[in-house]
């Protein structure tokens, strides 16, 4: 009996270890990617590429970095983060609507 529980808990432990390992791999990958993005961003500016090209690319990279930060480093991809995710995206939607209004019907 006790042997079996031990086995079960050892099995659980192994599963947890695997999960942690996977998590670690993902974090390292995203971290590397983020550094790569930063390098790209800086080199684009240093190389003096046309600003029509740089601006959207920079914004895109920034957006991806924010997503990495939220989902990988702050664990929003994991279970139990449904409500925070919903509420954060809800807030972003409303902020976006506000920005669109201000930039379309107030200032231009």
């Amino acid at each position, binding site marked *: 009996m006790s042997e079996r529980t031990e086995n079960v808990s050892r099995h659980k432990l192994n599963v947890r270890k695997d999960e942690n390992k996977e998590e670690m791999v993902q974090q390292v990958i995203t971290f590397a990617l983020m550094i790569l993005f930063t390098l790209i961003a800086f080199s684009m500016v240093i190389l003096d590429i046309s600003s029509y090209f740089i601006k959207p690319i920079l914004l895109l990279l920034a957006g991806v970095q924010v997503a990495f930060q939220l989902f990988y480093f702050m664990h929003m991809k994991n279970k139990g983060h449904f*409500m925070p995710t919903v*509420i954060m995206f*809800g*807030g972003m*939607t*409303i902020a976006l*609507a*506000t920005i669109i*209004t*201000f930039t*379309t*019907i*107030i*200032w231009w």
Partner: protein
Amino acid sequence: MSNAIVQQRGIGAMIWDYITTVDHKKIAHLYLVAGGLFFLIGGLEALIIRIQLMQPDSNFISAGLYNEMITMHGTTMIFLAAMPLIFALMNAVVPLQIGARDVAFPFLNSLGFWLFLFGGLLLNVSWFTGGAPDAGWTNYAPLSSTSPGHGVDYYVMGLQIAGAGTLIGGINFLVTIINMRAPGMTYMRMPLFTWTTFITSVLILFAFPALTVGLFLMMFDRMFGSAFFDVTAGGNAIIWEHLFWIFGHPEVYILILPVFGAFSDIFSTFSKKRLFGYSAMVFATVLIGFLGFMVWAHHMFTVGLGPIANSIFAVSTMAIAVPTGIKIFNWLFTMWGGSIKLSVAMLWALGFIPTFTIGGMTGVMLGSAAADYQYHDTYFVVAHFHYVIVGGTVFGLFAAMHYWWPKMFGKVLNEKLGHLGFWPFFIGFHLTFFIQHFLGLMGMPRRYWTYFEGQGLATGNLISTIGAFLMAIGTLVFLYNVVYTAIKEPKASADPWDGRTLEWSLPSAPPFYNFKQTPLVRGLDPLWIEKMEGRKGITPAEPLGDIHMPNGSILPFLMSMGLFIAGFGFIYQVDNKLWFIAVAVGMGLFFASMFTRSFKDDLGYHIHKEDLIEKGDGKE
């Protein structure tokens, strides 16, 4: 700790107890009393407005005072009466409905209340210091940014402080509902009042920051020489309107959604049926909450946003009528075939349905942008929003108070007096506001001090004023009922309405720790399920054990008082820089209290298992 000991120590101890309390049930009492007082003040202002408009060419109050009166009536009713009364209900009921011992952050709960109260007091001090705010509750720039005197400064500081309290309250309920539900209380088993509180809290979280930003800009324009709203210096007055309504429209849903939830619970309890279309009701609530953020420009159709913007906002506005309609039909179907008991709470709920439907209908009329050019800023709008706010929110508050009074105060409000109060209020309400639709269509503008003889507006206005006095009578009967019940009525049983949700499994009023054992929720309407299976109480989810409770604290009171003092400093430093001393003292008190809170550990205390057993089941 227990109430009995406090009672023996007399009135001073009781006041101290309430000033330092972090118990959600006592904070509910505080919100109720404070909100009720502001409701009476706002009602008095309304009567003065109606007396002024009773006859043509009237000179009952001066034009300037009239402007202050309408501004303070609107501001008081929305921010200082309706909101806190709603928070009173949320505090009294939500933790009980989800099977929690308190809210997630009891300290913040108390802070939220005191911020609201001191903000409200600050606003009303303006009456005695040379004039209240006079630019309307909407406080449009440039009328507000150039209004002489300090009235509008009081508006800005008062609402900033009170608004911070509301924001804190909203966040608190969000966290409470997400994290503190009893085992088995899944989202789709939450009573509708809890659901609507949840969505309302989300709306508060997203809407109030817009107001905060707007108020800050206004503060800097008026007190520190910036020019956000000053067109001559490159500013833009329309920014205020947008920020105000980005907050303002969700705010009207903040006012109505919680009472939607209360009505849902009331209809199902007094029809002895489970709520018809529960999941549709939840869905409609979420949808209303979402759409509520997409329609604010319907208050600005005549500003000149252009036909495209106007059309988009007109369509989204009309879309809200759909989930609202879903709700109305679900309430009707809940009653259909039910065994209906015409208690006072149910009476208010029945009165609400036709009244609110009329208000929604005029809302859709206003929402068609082209037609709104005709209605805008006339009494038609005044009629619309009183039909939804009084016919919805205020009726809902009356209904909910009659329903949950035993849970809050341990006694059932006298039903006879309840009926007696309903009728004058209901008839008075329709007398006051129905005729105002027609006054508006006849061209009577809102917020005008007076009108002339021979414009055909006299009779309508007279009728309207008579109605207002009937509403006052209804309110007085309710107040009398409160006193009468406190003195004459016997103690209520745990479950006077044969209720369905968790709060009715507790004694009326519940012990200060609410649940001796956390309940196990086995479905929607958990108490009803247990009753149907022949059990007396709710199945507990845990063995009897020690209960951890938070200690009371004076710090929230001191923090709010600090901001109150600093508020005066900000308002008057324009005249004399010495007033910065008040800012320093106030902010000093504020930060010192905050520092104390952060660095002094307060781990609360435990109620021991043995004491719980001794007390029996808490039902006395």
